[in-house]
């Protein structure tokens, strides 16, 4: 799958060993996709075989139905085991994904109709804010835990960075706190508002600038001006 990128830069060559939302997503998907594919294949093969084998032909009458409730019970047990495995992995991963670690860098994100504002408690005075026709840029250091406090000024919005395989809603009167980890090295990407929020929902995009140590130092020194 190609990642979403604007013309501004390359994507993230995300190493899967890096803990973070993208890692958690891949961990669960690597279980779910093969299971889904296997179930689909089994049903398809069974169906195709049945259609060929039991197609009506002259002189062949259908066999009377005999119920085999042991087969039903057996299938229920097998499916129960599959569900237990899926849910166990899901719940464990979900707990890890939503647990908060020690923040290496903090972001205050505010969503509003129709744009974003990012400020940084450790960099007072630095404000990245959308202007008409110019999306805001979220500046973060790569390779460390970025803790986001997400709020909304009006309706429900959602903060989604597709490359990180993660989104979270911004609810009125509430603060959503979550951790993001951007892979080491300099990279750029985009984020969207995923929750329908009115007229310019389509335009509620932001850029992400994940900076390596050197660029992040320059950005900090220059008070948030272009690094």
């Amino acid at each position, binding site marked *: 799958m*190609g*990642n*979403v990128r*604007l013309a501004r830069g390359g994507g993230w060559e995300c190493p899967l060993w890096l803990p973070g939302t993208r890692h958690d*997503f891949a*961990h*669960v*998907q690597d279980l779910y996709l093969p299971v*889904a594919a296997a179930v*689909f294949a089994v*049903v398809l093969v*069974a*169906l195709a075989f049945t*259609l060929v084998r*039991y*197609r*009506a032909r002259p002189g*062949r009458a*259908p*066999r*009377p*139905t005999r*119920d085999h*409730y042991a*087969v039903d019970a057996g*299938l*229920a047990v097998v*499916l129960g085991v*599959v*569900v237990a495995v*899926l*849910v166990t992995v*899901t*719940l464990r991963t*979900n707990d890890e*994904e*939503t647990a908060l670690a020690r923040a290496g860098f903090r972001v205050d994100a505010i969503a509003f*109709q129709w744009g974003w504002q990012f400020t940084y408690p450790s960099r007072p005075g630095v404000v990245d804010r959308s202007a008409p026709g110019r999306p805001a840029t979220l500046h973060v250091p790569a390779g460390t835990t970025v803790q986001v406090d997400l709020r909304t000024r*009006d*309706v*429900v919005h*959602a903060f*989604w960075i*597709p490359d990180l*395989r993660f*989104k*979270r809603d911004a*609810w009125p*009167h*509430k603060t959503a706190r979550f951790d993001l980890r951007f892979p080491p090295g300099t990279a750029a990407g985009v984020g*969207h*508002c*995923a929750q*329908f*929020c*009115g*007229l310019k*929902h*389509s335009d509620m*995009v932001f850029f992400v600038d994940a900076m390596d140590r050197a660029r992040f130092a320059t950005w900090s020194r220059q008070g948030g001006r272009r690094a």
Partner: protein
Amino acid sequence: MSATITPPYAPVRSLVGLAVGTDHKGVALRLGGAAFAFFLAGGILALLMRAELAQPGMQITSRGGYDQLFSMHGSTMIYLFVTPIALALGTYFVPLQVGAAEIAWPRLNLLGFWLLVLGGMIMWSGFLTRGGAGSAAWTGEYPQSAAIHSPGAGMDLWCAGVALAGLAGIALAASQIATIAGRRAPGMTLLRMPVFTWSMLVTCLMTVASFPALVLAMALLLADRHGAAIFDSAGGPAAYQNIFWFYGHPVVYVMFFPFLGAVLEVVSTFSGRRVFGYRAVVISLLVFTALSMSVWGHHMFTTGQVANGYFSLTSTMLAIPAGLEYLAMIGTMVGGAIVLRTPMLFALGFIVQFLVGGLSGIYVASPPLDYHVHDSYFVVAHFHYTLLAGSVFGLFAAVYYWWPKVTGRLLFERLGRVHFWLFVLGTHLTFIPQFVLGYEGMPRRVADYSPAYGWGGWNTVSTVGAGIVALSVVVFIVNVALTSIAGRPAGADPWEAHTLEWATTSPPPRHNFTAALPAIRSPAPLLDLREEAIL
């Protein structure tokens, strides 16, 4: 060529009869006709959306116009098409399948039809108002749906229309439950009811249990929009979502079970066998129904305000009863003599394609996966695979299967095949690209997207697919028109089917049965008769 079908009674053809006739078959036909008209209307909205999205940039509408298109498309399809047409199938066939002369509470049933039509017209009249129709999605989530964010009469009309459609569902479902409870023919025990009737029973139970939440949500939202400040608090928006989704998830199975039941009847008839594992089907339907009332929070994983683990568990557990239903469908075919007539083709389409929707449903029931794909085109593809590729294929299986019973004429087989294959092709072309687009980051409910993303190609494919779906529906309408002119008379039982509706004339007389019913000793009394004749 053209044979005349003479119904064994004088049908009410007057305007008064159309308005207030209480025969359940007439009500069901009018309800089904109205729902099909809403299907065409909602489909036109979908084509306009797909035209807008085919390429980046705004070509045919404005952002505000697009918001009305997707809001009214979703609302029309869910409140005014799939739900009512599912209940219309039950209104027509439940009394026949249980051997009743009439539906119970026929006036309540009739009221359901009128509430639905009025609700739909009120909802659509929003297009005539200054600000346009409702534009806060089919879910009307607060505070986007509040007066300050979605001003205008169109949104009020939407609330009122949805509330009436919800009441309509309750009325229609109640009379079917009463029919099953009190009007079964002698010998028709609960465990001798055909699977379709069972599927309607659980459907109607979910309807009466969950639709009041919808009516409540709409009433409160309407009051809120006129100054009552009901949801305007810290917990208000989440309260609205909880109430709404308490309706909103069971309704997903209201829009699925009737078609599952119809497909089981079709599979059973065209394999020449009784349903495999009948009691397991009944139990799985009941388990499914019970679980359906406790899965709503899976629509709210990204809100951070529900117990994600619990709702992930209940939602994933649905795979168990669903698996038993699949076993029943395939097990019925094994050992049969399968005849691939059009109803059976659509039934097979349902089985294969719904599986894509079901498996992607298990996928999105996992919060770590849902955090990525929620509110993206991936989810749009997922639920269209369940609703269009699944339920609507099941609906057409039912339509081709029961058309001869209802009209006395068989739909043309060759046109039916063209309809089927075009529909298959169009459906996959439309929705496979949407899985990819959503995974790559395209949010749903956007009127436009940047050309820099490179999404134009997949979106164009999706739009072409939607056009092919529309073409397939045109083929169906042509088939209906030609059939009404020159269709072959069907007789009472053209398919050698199993259930009581085939023991009467096509169409059935005013009080359904003129001759004595055959003995009811199983869910397939007509098959019993044929087997006894052989012995």
